[in-house]
């Protein structure tokens, strides 16, 4: 018999595992209603009660205070005495059985609360017994639990009809029905069927009387079981939809990363359709990691960059040209510098022990080109001019992925509006700031002091977007900037 099995298990729990078995814990664990759990415990006490301590709940009106309904916990030995406090009949039920009564009553609550916490922490799509209160003795079909996350709004004035329209926001209407019984239509049986199951509601409909007519309840219980099974399926479907939605963007993420791994080849990535900045940030990080692997190959090159910069520029410019398209199209390009075409990442690896974002690379190259030889600079400018006449060198401050404020000089292009704004503002500043930038870059490379960042707030003041988009490219100072000063 199932009951016997449960009783055995209770015995094991109480004696061997020294656990407090409260009726609530029992009901959730063995998926029985609270009333049934209490009966089980009573049976347990009757048949195997010796050797265990029992805690009872006593409830009733107090003798000493007739307008006070009192509910108290009392241990077995004190039961009769406690009953005297009550006026007339008081209801006695088993609350819990345990090996011994704990000193602190709150210890009775622990096992139950741990169980409640576990149920609470389950994913939102799961409708568990905590969330729908299925084991209690009182049903409330007007409770709606929105499993998709955002709550049903309650601000709207309540409509008279209890029909549930599909949008979530009018769910609150179901809670409030007019007092006239004739208007009450029970739209759904289960308390946890959300608006995403409209067909369910139409199939399971019954009249519901607000005063709790008992004869309807049995029918409803049976229906409820049916209905409970269905929403689970529905919700799973829902969940699948959601997860697949996420999966879509995730696959894009990996798709982009693998595409980026082919560095030298021209990548005409068409990831314009991912506007999500977080995805792009992840893409950058992953691409970054990929990039770092191959950029480490370039390290040796970087050291000699100064000398080879002239020739390398053109080569690297070509390489980076591909990246910039990839990188900046999916990101919300609030403040990104337009990467100089054809700059590669090599030199940055020298100073930075951390992961290098792609974007870092390109501007640094630009800095280098800026800092090294004037003629290089001129060359760059000359080169730049025919290639993309709207690119300018601009001083930008941004927050890197570690939250450091970084000031750097970047080339910027004409792709986005913010860049345009930048271009206009920084046009005037570029020349002045070239020098300040070297000073900034000579600041300790790991931690940019705030002063360095603040050194260019006037530039950035009109471009608040820059700072916000700063999760992209931290530009770090370049060791070669030393050489320019000297």
């Amino acid at each position, binding site marked *: 018999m199932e009951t016997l099995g449960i009783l055995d298990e209770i015995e094991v729990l109480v004696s061997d595992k020294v656990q407090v078995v409260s009726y609530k814990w029992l009901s959730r664990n063995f998926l029985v209603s609270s009333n*049934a759990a209490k009966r089980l415990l009573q049976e347990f006490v009757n048949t195997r009660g010796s050797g265990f301590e029992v805690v009872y709940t006593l409830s009733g009106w107090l003798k000493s205070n007739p307008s006070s309904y009192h509910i108290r916990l009392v241990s077995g030995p004190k039961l009769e005495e406690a009953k005297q406090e009550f006026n007339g009949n008081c209801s006695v039920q088993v609350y819990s059985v345990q090996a011994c009564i704990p000193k602190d009553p709150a210890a*009775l609550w622990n096992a139950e609360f741990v169980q409640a916490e576990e149920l609470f922490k389950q994913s939102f799509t799961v409708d568990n017994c905590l969330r729908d209160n299925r084991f209690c*003795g009182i049903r409330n079909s007007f409770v709606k639990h929105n*499993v998709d996350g955002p709550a049903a709004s309650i*601000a709207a004035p309540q409509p008279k009809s209890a029909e549930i329209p599909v949008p979530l926001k009018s769910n609150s209407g179901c809670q409030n*029905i007019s007092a006239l019984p004739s208007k009450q239509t029970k739209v759904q049986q289960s308390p946890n069927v959300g608006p995403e199951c409209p067909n369910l509601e139409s199939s399971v409909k019954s009249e519901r009387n607000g005063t709790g007519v008992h004869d309807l309840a049995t029918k409803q219980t049976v229906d409820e079981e049916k209905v409970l099974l269905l929403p689970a399926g529905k919700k799973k479907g829902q969940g699948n939809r959601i997860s697949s939605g996420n999966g879509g963007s995730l696959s894009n993420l990996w798709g982009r990363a693998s595409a980026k791994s082919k560095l030298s080849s021209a990548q005409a990535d068409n990831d314009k359709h991912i506007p999500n900045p977080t995805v792009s940030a992840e893409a950058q990080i992953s691409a970054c990691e990929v990039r770092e692997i191959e950029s480490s190959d370039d390290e040796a090159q970087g050291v000699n960059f100064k000398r080879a910069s002239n020739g390398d520029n053109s080569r690297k410019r070509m390489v980076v040209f591909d990246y910039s398209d990839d990188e900046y199209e999916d990101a919300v390009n609030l403040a990104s510098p337009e990467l100089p075409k054809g700059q590669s990442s090599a030199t940055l690896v020298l100073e930075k022990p951390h992961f290098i974002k792609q974007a870092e690379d390109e501007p640094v190259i630009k800095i280098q080109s800026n800092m090294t030889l004037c003629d290089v600079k001129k060359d760059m400018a000359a080169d730049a001019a025919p290639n993309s006449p709207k690119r300018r060198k601009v001083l930008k401050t941004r927050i890197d992925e570690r939250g450091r404020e970084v000031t750097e000089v970047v080339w910027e292009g004409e792709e986005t509006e913010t860049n345009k704004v930048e271009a206009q503002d920084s046009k005037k500043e570029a020349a002045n700031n070239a020098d300040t930038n070297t000073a900034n870059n000579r600041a300790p490379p790991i931690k940019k002091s705030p002063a360095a960042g603040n050194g260019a707030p006037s530039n950035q003041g009109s471009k608040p977007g820059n700072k916000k988009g700063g999760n992209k490219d931290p530009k770090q100072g370049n060791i070669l900037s030393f050489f320019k000063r000297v």
Partner: protein
Amino acid sequence: MAGMEIDTVENLQRKQSTYQSLDETFVIQNETYRGQQYSQIYFARLHMMRTLLYSLVTHWKPHVPVCTVLGLEEGKECIIVGTLYKHMKLKPCILDEYSKERSAVPLVKHHNFMHPDDHLVLEDESGRVKLGGTVLSPSVYVTGVVVALHGKETGAGDFMVLDVLEAGLAPQIEPQLKSREDKYVVFISGVSAGSSSSNPLQFQLLVDHITGHLGDEKEQGIVAEIVHVVIAGNSVEIPLGLLNGQNLASKDQSRLSEPVQELDILLTQIAAGVPVDIMPGSNDPANFSLPQQPLNRWLFPGSRAYNTFRSCTNPHCFELDGVRILGTSGQNIDDLKKYSEGRDGLEFMERTLKWRHLAPTTPNTLGCYPFTDRDPFLIESCPHVYFVGNQDKYGTRILKGSEGQLVRLISIPKFCDTGMVVVLNLRNLECHTLSFETQFSS
């Protein structure tokens, strides 16, 4: 497989009721702070109350002329309407705190700042006049109450008060649909989840009772008649030591969020069964000044998914089946207790209703938002039920107004101290308590 037993006992259905929130006046919506001072809220209060009092004065003493403070003439009886100001010797003053740093004498902290030398002053936009006489007792009144005074100016320049007229209870609207069946509202206050002095088992028993887990069928049948639960403030207690502005270690961070999560789990259990309103209190993570804005719904990620869960302002006003219920989490009455004298909390509550102002000591000694064009605490329609939370003990009384208004006053005790909640029957406005006891001597 659901694995659910079908009970031989039929499941009960919970009763329903119509709910309408009337919290719009308490929500800060379009107000912008432009650096204004509190004079505007006082002026709005005076203006509204004076209009009202002028209309009442014509019935009260029709033959006595009404004038402003500056228009007082010595020896001439007249009626003046204005805001009372109580000059209190012991009222804490910022200058005292400054001098505390300078002087060696320690400041004495008082629970109640009254002093025999306190005197009242009446002020309107034209001027102020000191009030004399024995009719107006300074121990009863507080700063911020608008009244009409009948008296005359003495030679000393005081105004000798002969009689006082308060606004009285506001007009009350009869509930259109008188409920013929018993429907109960449960008022809880001062749960203080997470506090070392609170007993979580006690609150769990309450939750189990309300949601229909505890008790036999008869009891559950009565519980099925509970249609609404109101939690009136101080639902969490976050350890104060963590709130001193220092950076928290990661283990401390979980201590910070545990009380709220515990509350959320319990609220989820309640919301799954019955509509619940939660109001912020003085210890809750909400703004300090009245009207306190609703607790952020993201504090309760579990409960907010329910359409039965509502986060409300403090003060909170709503209608349930046509019965108008208004109440606060206790700050208004607690402040009155500091600056005036009364028999019990209910007497202070009665006074606020008669003064037609929920919190007359705002903004003087109780923080409130500097409204510019209105005073949201003015009571325009008399509620049927008026509750105050976080009080020391339970109390209830019916207040009768001069025009037949009937108000049920409820003083809700702190649950963490008393284990008691208040249950109101919407049908006849009768109250009883529900108390929980978990200490079993073993």
